């Protein structure tokens, strides 16, 4: 097991390195940069000025040298300098990462709390009205464009009803010393994004839980347990649930990818100051270092969760042997 984990870790690191180089190359091929845009409408900003500025920022070196410099710095913890905000990248990134973590884990939590019971109920009441509605809901959930759902939520809950803020992370200027007030304030801002983001995960987990439960309920040992005269609820709790939820655990870990992917768009729709919206803005604004950091951080998080899922799966399912 340990050697399996180590091998997978090495694979992950290699993948990250390859990925960082490819991404760096690709971003390097993007034409223009914030300097060009800043200069674009200004008749007094000459091309010499531009070139000199680019020289100063090391933009005129060949791409592999720039990658080398960048990677060396990155490994030593120097994440580079944001050309958009003109401060060190770490200064920008830290709060963003925290925000996205909050959004991501909350989404995961909410999805779990909703999806698992729904899936289990649907499987227990197979063919019932409840099952039908849960199923339809799940289908709708995986078919809804998340950004559109976000927009609809804004129209309904912010613009029409004016119950919740339309976007942002927190009320600026809220009294930071009162922990409770800060918490309540942030929750207000999280409700809509979490709803929009969790729709997809809830829907796919419901489906997965339901089919996993149905499959388990057909197993011989469940029949045996029933024939031994155990009550239905204890059959389900002791035997069915436990076995059915095992594979769900890995699916949940793997869904991290969905959440982090989806967060880019959700954050954009709700102007949520997370790493996803930062990545988008920095790609569009060609803020190289920030874009690289965000992208790699998202990849790292996802790869680690994939690894965790694989290990969990291998651990939970005795049929798998790790070569």
């Amino acid at each position, binding site marked *: 097991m340990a050697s399996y984990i180590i091998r997978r870790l090495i694979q992950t690191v290699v993948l990250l390195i390859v990925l960082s180089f490819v991404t760096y190359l690709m971003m390097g091929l993007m*034409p223009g940069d914030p*300097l060009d845009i800043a200069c674009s409408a200004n008749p007094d900003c*000459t091309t010499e000025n531009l070139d000199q500025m680019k020289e100063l920022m090391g933009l005129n070196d060949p791409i592999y040298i720039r990658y080398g410099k960048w990677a060396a710095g990155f490994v030593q913890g120097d994440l580079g300098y944001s050309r958009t905000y003109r401060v060190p990248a770490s200064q920008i990134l830290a709060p963003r990462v925290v925000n996205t973590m909050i959004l991501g884990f909350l989404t995961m939590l909410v999805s779990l709390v909703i999806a698992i019971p729904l899936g289990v109920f649907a499987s227990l009441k197979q063919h019932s009205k409840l099952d039908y509605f849960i199923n339809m809901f799940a289908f709708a959930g995986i078919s809804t464009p998340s950004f559109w759902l976000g927009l609809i939520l804004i129209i309904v809950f912010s613009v029409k009803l*004016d119950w919740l803020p*339309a976007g942002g992370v927190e009320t600026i200027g809220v009294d930071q010393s009162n922990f409770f007030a800060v918490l309540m304030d942030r929750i207000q801002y999280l409700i809509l994004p979490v709803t929009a983001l969790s729709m997809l995960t809830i829907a796919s987990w419901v489906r997965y839980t339901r089919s996993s439960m149905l499959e388990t309920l057909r197993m011989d040992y469940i029949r045996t347990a029933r024939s031994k005269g155990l009550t239905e609820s204890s059959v389900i709790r002791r035997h069915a649930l436990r076995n059915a939820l095992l594979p769900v655990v890995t699916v949940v870990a793997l869904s991290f990818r969905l959440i982090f992917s989806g967060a880019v768009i959700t954050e954009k729709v709700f102007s949520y*100051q997370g790493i996803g919206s930062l990545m988008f803005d920095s790609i569009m604004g060609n803020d190289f270092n920030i874009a690289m950091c965000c992208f790699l951080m998202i990849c790292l998080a996802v790869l680690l969760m994939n690894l965790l899922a694989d290990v969990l799966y291998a651990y939970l399912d005795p049929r798998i042997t790790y070569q």
Partner: protein
Amino acid sequence: MKVQKKTTSFWFWLLMGTAISILPGCNQCTSNGPTASTPGPANDQLVLAMSQEFENLNPILQQMLATSYLNGFVIHSINWINKDWEWECALCVKTPSLENGLAKIVTENGVKKVVSSWEIKPNAKWGDGAPVTGHDFKLSWQVGGSKNVAVGEKKNYTRIESVTVDAVNPKKFTIKHDKAYYDFYKLSHSNIGLLPSHIEAPIWEKTKNQPGAYEKQTEYAKNPLNPGLYNGPYKISELKLGSHIIFTPNEYFYGDAPKIKKIIAKLISNTQTMEANLFSGSVDMISILGMTFDQALSLKEKLDRDPKLSGKYKVKFEPGLVYEHVDLNLRNPLLKDVRIRKALRHGVNVKELTDALFRGQQKPALHSVHPMDSYFTKDVEKYAFDLEKSKALLEEAGWKANASDGYRYKDGEKLTLNLMTTAQNKTREQVQVFLQAAWKKIGVNVTLKTQPARIFFGETVRKGTYPGLAMFAWISSPDNPPASIFHSSMIPSRKNSFSGQNSGAWSNPVVDEALDLIETELDQKERQKLMVKVMQEYNKDVPVIPLYFRSDVAVIPANMKNHFVTGHQHSAPRWAQHWDLGN
């Protein structure tokens, strides 16, 4: 799965859902604003929103419009252009001129130079109580002129030969320019930023020999809450890049004490979210860098319809400096023919365009000079909207109309031009489609293309590689001759490594000569004459089809007093101490 039986009911519910979400459509939205009972913002706090990113506030390094807007709250420059589009002193006591004797022409080694004497207001102080002095200006000039610092308009710094601070009274200093430039008196932040030498000088000493080091070490990036960095009506009490800034009054400010106790500037990049925030009351005001023009128009209509809302907000339009136009690439053989250029110009009804798309709130442009600018002239060739004239010009150039498809042909070739502009700019895309339809009427086939701004400006316009027409904008600051745009030496090419911004490759000897003379012409009247000459040639040659001047739009609380939209680069926050929300 038994669920299948309920197919019909599923689709039914879906349709119902659709209906419900659509039906409460526009008719209701007017009533969704805040109710009349909600109190308006008061002097204790004002939240303003903007949609553009800002960077650290160092006045020399700043490149973004939003930064220069926000800087107005906290850092005053020596002087600036006021709301009447005239230069006026901010920190200085009197702007030097040859007439008032504070500036004079000296001749050194046969070169005419201008020397100007300046004095800073005695009570002008930084936020930690240190006085603003000539040393601050001298440091700023050194930093901005250094080859190790990246600054957009280096020329503003390098053309200054020396800065001498008075030994007795450091509030006094003299500037010597290396030539007798007429515009030696321009010392605003868009010319030269002003740094606090008591904080930044030690940092500069440490970093000046290292390329790119200063901008990473400047106190504005490291510790932006230091009050000593600011000399304006406000200082900064909280700053989160990509999110917001909180301004609180600066007790050492040299002018009147600010009335509003706290101003929060909030970045909301999604302009729709911004509008929703305005209606829900979490934003009180939208800055000129906030709404799209279209949004502002529909908001204005909404306000006009709903008295409850118009009691809350005012939408202000002010014709601005941003000059939207279509550049014609004169390298294109079709566009080399002046008859085609004139035909295109006669074929556009700019008045109809601005009326239809902007309800007349943005003004058609006659040429590149703004009507408020002192160089403006009406004495140029005019091109009325005239389809017949337009068609006649094309006929004359040999392009014959084909009855079957309505387009014009010559030697079997269809008269086709490509019109490019920036992607993601709704207004430009609308204008693009408008122009396509307009020119179809005179038989010109216009194909459309959009590119992301960074490609469009970074490559296409910069190198002049757009095949036919390119629509974009210049910011034509007042009193600023357009040498880098119109001079034929400024045609970007491989030879000059694409320096220069004459991307359409317009070359006119009369214009070249006038532009050469204007820079060192100290007589305002003579400069005026030269500029008129340039504009006359501009309208004779038609290297560009002028469209309109963009308007600046701001939404302010109805009870806000003393706020104005300047329309030029020196925006309203510079006078924020007068803003008043009291009743």
